[in-house]
């Protein structure tokens, strides 16, 4: 492990020296930060319902300490920690906020995109009379990707199944990620979409139902 860590420092921007020298010292200081951070986290969590908050903080601190020990990148220090600390909570939620507000925008599942792009490509054959229009590489790559990531026999049947999650407050983007990932278990859903963990108690049941429905239309 230490060997791997050292190797990696060549890609790190921070100097490796400081981390090696002061690792013991850093450890102590990191622990201190850990505490304060997790406290902060708990403080923030109070607003959520009881079970959810316990869930979230538990898994969070577990992952957190894991990252801490495994990576062993003392040099990076508090900076990384802060970003790691924020990310698992905010990651998915951001999609809706990051999208431009003033334009109409709809998330597409990979299976829907595959269907749409395939339709365009089929048309291209007839449209290609104009040699000045050439299909850009990003189209081919997009189509290739969408086809590969398509896990379902029937693209139309996927959305109605997952839309039932909407009434539990699952966002469009989260629905699309679930569809694209095509998970087998509810644990997988919550591990991959940390933003849903807060509502775990409410969501476990409906997600379980949805996954068993999806399993029926899975292609393999």
């Amino acid at each position, binding site marked *: *492990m230490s060997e*791997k860590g050292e*190797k*990696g420092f*060549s*890609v790190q921007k921070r100097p490796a020296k400081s981390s090696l020298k002061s690792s013991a010292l850093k450890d102590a200081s990191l622990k201190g930060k850990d505490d304060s951070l997790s406290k902060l986290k708990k403080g923030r969590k109070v607003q959520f319902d009881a079970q959810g908050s316990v869930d979230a903080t538990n898994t969070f601190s577990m*992952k957190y300490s894991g990252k801490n020990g*495994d*990576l062993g990148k003392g040099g990076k220090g508090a900076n990384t920690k802060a970003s790691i600390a924020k*990310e698992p909570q*905010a*990651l*998915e939620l*951001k*999609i809706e906020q*990051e*999208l*431009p507000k003033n*334009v*109409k*925008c*709809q*998330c*597409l*599942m*990979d299976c*829907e*995109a595959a269907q*749409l*792009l395939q339709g*365009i490509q089929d048309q291209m054959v007839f449209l290609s009379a*104009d040699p*000045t*229009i050439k*299909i*850009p*590489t*990003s*189209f081919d*790559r*997009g*189509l*290739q*990707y*969408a086809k*590969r*990531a398509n896990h379902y026999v029937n693209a139309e049947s996927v959305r109605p199944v997952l839309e039932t999650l909407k009434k539990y407050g699952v966002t469009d*983007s989260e629905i*699309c*990620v679930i569809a*694209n*990932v095509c*998970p087998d278990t509810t*644990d*997988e859903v919550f*591990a*991959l*979409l*940390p*933003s849903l963990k807060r509502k775990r108690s409410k969501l476990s049941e409906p997600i379980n139902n949805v996954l068993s429905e999806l399993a029926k239309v899975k292609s393999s």
Partner: protein
Amino acid sequence: MFFHIVLERNMQLHPRHFGRNLRENLVSKLMKDVEGTCSGRHGFVVAITGIENIGKGLIRDGTGFVTFPVKYQCVVFRPFKGEILEAVVTMVNKMGFFAEAGPVQIFVSNHLIPDDMEFQSGDVPNYTTSDGSVKIQKDSEVRLKIIGTRVDATEIFCIGTIKDDFLGVINDPSAA
């Protein structure tokens, strides 16, 4: 993730394109100009799917060019932080590996590869677990999570991780 999105663009058209085919000319110019481009706000424009409306043209002073505001629907591909993607590995080295998901390039540093996977150099450089049960090499399919993005004029570059639950290799080309 793919999105269906409505965008607007001011198209400048030379007077020689006017006449009966003005609309077709405008649309084919739009396709040439827009498809395959990439912006930080919207991501890669993969394909135009339809024209919402074309506004009134405005003659530019001094030139004969006319500017038309065009609203069009298109499919864009944009990666987000925290998104889970399935990507194909394109290159493996001791720093980590590169993978591709559609038009997007993703780098996974060896810090973000599980600790039990070690780099093996050779003809086919790869990351392998100590028991050899899992191997990441060129053309492997991996499920990864995007943790950072950088947007360029012409491409989007991402940093990904496979060091988490339910992430990692989903199919192995050498096993098949």
